[in-house]
């Protein structure tokens, strides 16, 4: 493990409309080391690496590889400079064989497809790195871990010296994780530079040599693994002061409104997204789910709102078993849903404010007595809604896509709340909103809670969680790691749970705390 700086990224700044993804980021990686890039969602890790692999062009900054300044404008440039990345979503062609994928698009391999030659080369290469793969297997037949190995071999075959892995363990079993890092260590020992992006603290401590922590688009710290602790890293990753509290009367009710028992579900790829999830929410309580995105939060929301089937377990709503109910039935059972995807799912950008307010209520006899819609009633209702919730829009006939993010969210909330729900499922409700908009959304949610509505909140922002929630549950890799009361004392524990650190005694809090 030499200390030659294989890679230096200096002063990297990258802006997108509305957000600064990287701000004057400093990043250095040495030859022969495994370097972890740590941070929460939105901290800027992926952006930084996309700059390095030629997918993004930075607004400011420079990159030096082996001491030489390089200009990485396209992925080909990055490949030529010896940089390669294994993405979270693999770039492999399913029906092709392993060797076809590894050599895809390589002009240097000649015009004719010569499987025997290539097969031999790959076998030799994989043997030299100790990573066994079957060159003739088809990608779709391989397990996720094996596919990942193919992606890595693809980089090595093309002469990558700097390998970047983006959240590599997100889809692996524990054994596969060990295997992966065994291979990475071997690669590092042979002189390669390995960078892996992660939010999982225990992995970082177990496998990395050095760590760079990003937060809010900035690099906040660089540590050597041996000279730091999980505690310190968690604080660096997450650390911030509390924002103002919103006064909440204690949770009064003992009634359980929403209950999940041993629920399991698959994600879109057919892999388990939720494993044996159980919890309950009382009337007038906010239960927040903390955890880095991608640990099953989306699937949890979809399961509760009927958009995704469960493979095991039961869901109870106010005493009724709603496990296999349709979306429509769950809406009728007074469950409101504020989805993650505001413009794609929750609202229809091309339709007017009025039409969006009646997206779910168009069947309500009050505004639709027969099969004809009563436009006057709809309009009146929409006007009341807009006024009551302070939604700023030129007219209520305006298409919704012209509204600001804050107003969009307020509209969504207005619609969902006006249905006087018993349960609200709110997913990242203030993502991308400014401070004022965030405040008002928070006020609305707490108001609902005080009126007796149960709220299932999913958020990445610990401030928000501790401000709003009565209890906090941490979901990690599809399982609930623990449920704690949302008090100041729990902050550290929660932070560590989010990063995958498990401790005994965290599953005890299933009861509302006053």
């Amino acid at each position, binding site marked *: 493990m030499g200390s030659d700086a294989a890679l230096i990224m200096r002063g990297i700044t990258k802006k997108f409309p509305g957000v600064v993804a990287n701000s004057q980021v400093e990043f250095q990686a040495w030859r022969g080391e495994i370097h972890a890039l740590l941070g929460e969602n939105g901290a800027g890790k992926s952006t930084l690496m996309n700059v390095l692999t030629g997918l993004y062009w930075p607004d400011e900054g*420079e990159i030096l590889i082996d001491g030489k300044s390089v200009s990485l404008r396209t992925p080909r440039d990055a490949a030529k400079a010896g940089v390669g990345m294994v993405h979270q979503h693999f770039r492999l062609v399913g029906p092709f064989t392993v060797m076809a994928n590894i050599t895809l698009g390589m002009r240097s391999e000649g015009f004719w497809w010569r499987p025997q030659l290539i097969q031999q080369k790959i076998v030799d290469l994989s043997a030299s790195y100790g990573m066994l793969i079957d060159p003739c297997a088809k990608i779709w037949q391989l397990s996720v871990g094996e596919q990942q190995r193919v992606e890595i071999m693809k980089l090595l075959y093309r002469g990558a010296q700097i390998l970047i892995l983006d959240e590599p363990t997100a889809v692996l079993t524990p054994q596969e994780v060990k295997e992966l890092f065994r291979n990475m260590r071997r690669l590092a020992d042979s002189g390669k530079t390995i960078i892996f992006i992660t939010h999982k603290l225990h992995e970082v401590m177990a496998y990395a040599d050095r760590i760079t922590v990003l937060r809010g688009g900035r690099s906040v710290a660089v540590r050597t693994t041996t000279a730091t602790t999980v505690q310190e890293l968690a604080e660096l990753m997450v650390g911030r002061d509390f924002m103002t509290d919103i006064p909440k009367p204690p949770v009064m009710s003992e009634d359980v409104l929403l209950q999940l028992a041993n629920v399991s579900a698959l994600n879109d790829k057919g892999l388990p997204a939720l494993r044996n999830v159980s919890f309950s929410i009382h009337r007038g309580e906010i239960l927040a789910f903390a955890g880095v995105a991608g640990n099953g939060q989306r699937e949890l929301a979809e399961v509760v709102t009927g958009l995704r089937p469960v493979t095991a377990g039961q869901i109870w709503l106010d005493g009724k078993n709603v496990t296999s109910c349709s*979306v429509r039935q769950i809406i009728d059972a007074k469950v409101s*849903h504020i989805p993650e*995807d505001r413009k*794609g799912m929750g609202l229809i950008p091309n*339709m007017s404010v009025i039409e969006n307010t009646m997206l*779910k209520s*168009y069947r309500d006899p009050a505004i639709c007595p027969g*099969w004809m819609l009563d*436009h006057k009633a709809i309009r009146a209702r929409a006007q009341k809604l807009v006024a009551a919730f302070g939604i700023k829009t030129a007219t209520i006939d305006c298409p919704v896509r012209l509204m600001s993010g804050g107003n969009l969210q307020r509209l969504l909330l207005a619609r969902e709340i006006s249905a006087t729900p018993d349960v609200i499922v709110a997913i990242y409700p203030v993502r991308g909103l400014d401070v004022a908009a965030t405040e008002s959304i928070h006020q609305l949610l707490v108001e609902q809670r005080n009126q007796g509505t149960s709220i299932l909140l999913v958020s990445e922002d610990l401030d928000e969680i501790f401000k709003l929630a009565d209890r906090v549950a941490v979901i990690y890799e599809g399982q609930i790691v623990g449920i704690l009361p949302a008090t100041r004392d729990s902050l550290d524990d929660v932070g560590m749970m989010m990063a995958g650190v498990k401790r005994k005694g965290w599953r005890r809090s299933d009861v509302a705390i006053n």
Partner: protein
Amino acid sequence: MLLSTRKQSGFVIRWEKRLEPSQQITIAIPIVSILLALLVGGVVILALGFNPLAVYRSMLAHAFLSRSGLMDTAVKAIPLILAGLGVALAFRMLLWNIGAEGQIYVGALAASGVALSLPEAPAYVILPAMMLAGMMAGAAWALLAAIPRAYLGANETIITLLLNYVAIYWVDHLVFGPWRDPGALGFPITRAFSSAARLPMLIGRIHVGILIALAAALLFYAILYHSRWGFEVRVIGESVLAARYAGMNIERNIILVLMISGGLAGLAGVTEISAIHGRLQTGFSPGYGYTAIIVASLAAMHPGWVVVASFLLSGLLVGGFSMQIAGLPLAVVSMLQGAILFFLLGSSVFARYRLTFRRKEGS
């Protein structure tokens, strides 16, 4: 959301997605498309030895400014409106029903069957029966593609297309064979319908079908914008994600929409043979089903504009017929139609994306 084509020179040309589809451009598109198509058509007309401006002027004059031509235009607009509404409905939900032509034929077929088997029936019985039969036949024909599409994800474009040919051959078979009029000296036509089975005339040559067509357009508008179900259709067409989120049933609507689409085209077939021909005969439709696709595209799937576009395209057809005497082949019309659609497609990108030229960013 920036998409770029990397160029070797110092420029980068990008398609930048617009935050909001530009209003002015959206309105300008059909107009510009027609103008450009007329331009291209003009070149071809010139190559054939005619003066394009004179041709266009005379086509316009005949189709819209002469009493007889105007009536023809109105009459030919009727099946276009009906079939155009059907196609527009399907297209709204991204269901590519290219089978309007075949649905027109089976609609006519079914109506003829009814008319020929009930020669004694009075008008108030036979006409509704014919229309009902025609609509059901058209709906059933569309169903043949709807079911594989809804449950297997099969390509409804190809199925509806191929069914066009089957429908036309079926009609040919009946008209050359079992239903042939014995007294017709071998011509491929059926016996004439009873006078009760003929749609009555309204003004001159314009028959009652125009009322049916306009009523259908009105009904379409009412249902689409004022009914519960219409709202569902519009939402599904805009965003399947949002529709599912709101609890709407997508599969059921696919089948329903395709059936109605087919039914409307079937109705178009009924009005044609009942009012115009009075019997079933081969080739009674000069491609109305295909023209309906252009109508729907021009109208951006709005019922009101479907009516306008139908008149426009029927005027084109009538004008084209009138020019045949002067020696201009009718194929110019179908070529113009294709060109209009071309330019429509090509220019619609400008509403959604903006073309920007920028010097390459450097450090």
